[in-house]
């Protein structure tokens, strides 16, 4: 597996060498059988000779299953504990890192609009994979998900009819285009790229679980650098800051929902 990752990095520049091994092994094994191949070296050969195969693997490795208002309690606490802090700023910059197909990004946009803050907010939503960003920009999600998303939205403290935000179209639920007005979807690689702005909030939930400890620490360096003092870092509910090199630099804003505030 090391050889394959090294070869992919040398040939394409995609660096998965510091991804957490167990998940990586599962995804490579799945790609192997989908390609009808027997060995990792066979997969390596096809990856290097067929860029289309690399595209398929890239999707395997970067698509994460997500949902709108996933973990409703996170969004509920974001309303009660983060929004009041944001009201004090004339202009708000949020980095949604590892945004995948945009479900979380649009959820944040809806929340901020309801709180009357969206007009002065810019959300920078980034992902390593251009294909998911193309999808995210369309703001089009499967209709059959709307029941789950509506329940999540209501549980998160949403007070309107969720159906106000989309129209049911032939291809799916088309979300209000104006929700995308203050979102910049852009390619950014957490493993290799640098910080590109200073933010009041960084939201990066269930992304670093796929990274090994050293890459996780690198990304924490990046977020620490990118947050302004008293800025808020939001992780997934089962992610911990305790095992990173920045544990002492943040105060805990909400322990269950993993909201931290840059203190020093």
């Amino acid at each position, binding site marked *: 597996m090391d050889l394959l990752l090294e070869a992919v990095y040398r040939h394409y520049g995609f660096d998965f060498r510091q991804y*957490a*091994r*167990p*998940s990586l*092994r*599962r*995804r490579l094994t799945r790609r192997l059988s989908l390609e009808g191949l027997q060995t990792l070296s066979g997969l390596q050969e096809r990856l290097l000779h067929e860029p289309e195969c690399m595209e398929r693997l890239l999707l395997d490795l970067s698509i*994460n*299953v*997500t949902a709108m208002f996933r973990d409703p309690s996170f969004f509920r606490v974001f309303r009660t504990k983060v929004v009041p802090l944001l009201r004090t700023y004339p202009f708000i910059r949020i980095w949604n890192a590892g945004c995948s197909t945009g479900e979380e990004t649009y959820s944040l946009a809806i929340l901020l609009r309801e709180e009357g803050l969206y007009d002065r907010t810019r959300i920078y939503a980034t992902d390593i994979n251009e294909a998911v960003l193309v999808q995210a920009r369309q703001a089009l999600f499967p209709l059959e998900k709307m029941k789950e998303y509506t329940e999540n939205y209501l549980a998160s403290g949403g007070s309107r009819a969720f159906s106000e935000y989309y129209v049911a179209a032939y291809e799916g639920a088309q979300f209000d285009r104006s929700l995308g007005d203050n979102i910049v979807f852009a390619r950014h690689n957490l493993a290799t790229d640098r910080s590109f702005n200073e933010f009041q909030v960084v939201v990066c939930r*269930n992304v*670093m*679980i*796929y990274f*090994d*400890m050293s890459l*996780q620490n690198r990304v924490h360096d990046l977020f620490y650098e990118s947050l302004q003092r008293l800025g808020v870092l939001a992780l*997934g*509910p*089962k*992610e*911990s800051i305790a*095992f990173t090199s920045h544990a002492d630099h943040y105060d805990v804003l909400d322990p269950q929902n993993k909201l931290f505030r840059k203190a020093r």
Partner: protein
Amino acid sequence: MSAADHLVVVGCSWGGLDALSRLLAHVPQDLPAAIVVAQHRMHDASYLAELLARHTDWPVCEAEDKEPISVGHVHLAPPGYHLLIDGHRLALSTEGPVRHSRPSIDVLFESAAEAFTHRVVGVVLTGANSDGARGLVRIVRRGGRAVVQDPATAARRDMPEAALATGVDATVAPLEEIGPLLGQMITSHPQGERSSSHPQGERSST
């Protein structure tokens, strides 16, 4: 807290809460291992840790990503995540369900076999599906051991039966005997080196 040299991975589904409670109540207090559990459950059933903690003196916690695996601890897969073993740490994943389950018992068992090889015991308990069967085969293939709840004692026998149907070399036992059995398996198992379960000379093979 010290890092665990031995790992017990447990999978259960339908009837799992009762089965886990009875299993944990009989685990030797000084078992030199960590116990990691994948139970299929409803998304919001987050009180499992509290309920189980009534039956054991070991700390029972829902796993966090990159948390070290500690001796004398019960680590639970959080609902809605796969739980994997990454070296001596726990790792989570939000990949899609595997054969309709997240957490998937197979995913936990396969990663445990990879990380702990012969120092892992896989335990399949009650359940109404076949999750865990593949993972148990992987554990034994990598030198670990397998325990399956006696299907006759299980709330739902499908899962133990599916595990046994693979033909895997497993010890079959009722819940109350599994804890003591783990004690024997792990303490008769010197650290680092794999011990033969049938020492030479005990039985004549010629």
